[in-house]
């Protein structure tokens, strides 16, 4: 009976794998492909149109500008995967950072204050999750309410129109300082070794069960692409990008922080039971419930993670400004949702990865940055970003249709 062959998609040579890959794309499983395409097109376009776009200084700026949005978009993925939304993620971070400032102001040690800020974030996430998962209020409504309420809370905490300096060098250096030249290379090497280790570990497990593995050349190719892209990035960031006398070089400190969070978050989603259940609930909550998954707990946990990662984004914001504002977090949240969707995370739930959100964030930041360099008015930026968002959502809806069309 066991002569029946059922494949796992790992069989065959490089060519079979490539054919299978194109087949998946044809079936509508495009993943990050449209977003990567957009990234390349937008990048190429601005490089041609503006002499300032492809400079070392602007290259570094792009990363720093994208950090806040990337973090927020990554945070939102955890709830968007459930088919939920958190419109209050930005102002939640604002409230947590306001709390951070008040504690600092009252003389609390900055590390303690920061921990409290994250606890505030987590508590807000738990509150949202409670309303959504236990009481059954739609997340759109709960978080819209908090979006309004927390704008007020920020004003109450900090006073009208307040901007307050934060004089903690460690905090400011996240967005404003760089790793030493060797630090960037060490970090790149570390990430390459980590991702190779994970892949080889998987292959070893499969081999132990006598399961076929994809051709090793594909893994080498993937690592080579990472090494080349990463190496180019580190090399360029290590060049002097200053336009003045003092030299500025090195990988901005925020990059390793963001990359590590992305890496760990991806491991959680792909390789833990929690991650699997998160996708399951997003795909079919009733099926998840019948399979014995505690759906409410998954939802609440996702909102907690979202809020806490949003606080990271808020921290980046505070670091860049060197100050806490009473109006922080209002604008960015819609861009965060847009970034996730542009990157290919489905608002219907169940489909998408953290790296998609990061790519989407880069597309949006690039558009903003490039149009700014071309001295277009801010209005044009909003129109273009909005159009890209609608385009991305259309691709999502169409590919969803195509995926379902495969049923007969």
């Amino acid at each position: 009976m066991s002569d029946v062959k059922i494949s796992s998609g790992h069989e065959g040579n490089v060519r079979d794998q490539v054919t299978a890959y194109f087949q998946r794309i044809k079936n509508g499983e495009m993943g990050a492909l449209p977003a990567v395409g957009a990234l390349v097109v937008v990048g190429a376009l601005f490089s041609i149109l503006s002499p300032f776009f492809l400079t070392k200084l602007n290259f570094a700026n792009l990363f720093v500008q994208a950090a806040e949005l990337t973090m927020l978009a990554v945070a939102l993925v955890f709830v968007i995967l459930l088919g939920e939304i958190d419109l209050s993620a930005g102002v939640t971070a604002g409230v947590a950072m306001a709390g951070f400032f008040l504690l600092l102001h009252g003389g609390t040690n900055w590390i303690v204050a920061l921990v409290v800020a994250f606890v505030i974030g987590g508590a807000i996430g738990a509150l949202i999750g409670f309303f959504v998962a236990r009481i059954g209020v739609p997340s759109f409504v709960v978080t819209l309410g908090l979006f309004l309420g927390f704008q007020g809370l920020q004003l109450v905490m900090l006073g009208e129109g307040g901007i307050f300096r934060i004089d903690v060098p460690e905090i400011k250096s996240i967005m404003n300082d760089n790793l030493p030249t060797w630090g960037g290379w060490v970090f790149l090497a570390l990430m390459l070794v980590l991702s190779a280790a994970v892949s080889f570990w998987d292959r070893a497990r499969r081999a132990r069960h006598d399961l076929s593995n994809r051709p090793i050349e594909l893994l080498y190719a993937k690592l080579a692409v990472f090494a080349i892209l990463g190496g180019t990035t580190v090399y360029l960031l290590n060049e002097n990008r200053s336009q003045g006398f003092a030299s500025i070089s090195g990988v901005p400190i925020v990059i390793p922080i963001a990359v590590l969070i992305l890496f760990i978050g991806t491991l959680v989603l792909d390789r833990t039971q929690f991650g699997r259940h998160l996708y399951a609930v997003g795909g079919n909550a009733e099926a998840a419930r019948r399979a014995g998954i505690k759906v409410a707990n998954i939802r609440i946990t996702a909102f907690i993670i979202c809020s806490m990662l949003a606080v990271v984004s808020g921290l980046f914001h505070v670091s860049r400004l060197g100050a806490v504002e009473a109006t922080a977090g209002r604008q960015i949240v819609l861009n965060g949702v847009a970034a996730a969707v542009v990157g290919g995370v489905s608002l219907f739930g169940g489909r998408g990865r953290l790296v998609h959100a990061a790519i989407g964030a880069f597309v949006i930041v690039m558009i903003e940055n490039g149009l700014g360099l071309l001295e277009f008015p801010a209005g044009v930026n909003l129109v273009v970003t909005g159009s890209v968002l609608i385009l991305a959502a259309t691709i999502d809806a169409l590919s969803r249709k195509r995926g379902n069309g495969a049923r007969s």
Partner: protein
Amino acid sequence: MDVPVIELSGVLKSFGPVDVLKGVDFKAYGGKVTALVGDNGAGKSTLIKGLSGVQPYDAGVVKFDGEVVHIHSPRQAGHLGIEVVYQDLALCENLDIVQNMFLGREEITELTLDEASMELQATKALQSLSVRTVKSVRQKVSSLSGGQRQTVAIARSVLRKAKLVILDEPTAALGVAQTEQVLNLVRRLADSGVAVVIISHNLGDVFKVCDYISVLYLGKMVASVKTSETTQADVVGYITGTKSMDGASA
């Protein structure tokens, strides 16, 4: 005849003033396919919900492998080895076949999901049912046909080493070829020793694959017969209430 895997006697269930099950007796044997037929509203789903623990009976004796049991929750039913494949299947379209088959019972080693081990077991379960229609166990369920989805749902019960598998209208939404495949699958499942119960409105299917037929009529089991010893016309008679077990036409 050996001990039935499941044996119900005198099962009662009412919703307020409405008596839905009025003293039902029912048996299903290991290695056999038993059809549960009856008109709309006869009480088939209610009977099944009692076995799956979703909606316990009000009274009556339930014996599993000859032992009296009380099933009060789906978890308990699962522990006994009772699996129900609902009509809507309850699969996650965004997950692949392996992930669906292990949903809620993922295997963990070294703190992470043991994908390799789960993939191997899922493949073996499908092979044990001689499933030929599924190309890859890593296909997303969204890309599967209705029959393939039914196959995955049934294979999931194999994986869980179920002793009793109950299928609620497994072929209702399927075309001719896929119905054939699923019926073959049901046969092989029974041949592996599992007691299979099928709810169906399609007597053609029932006569093709079932060893026994039990007919519910207005909350009473009006007939329990061997398929080989009855005819479609008789069964239609039982279902519509124009005929009863002693053979007298009403």
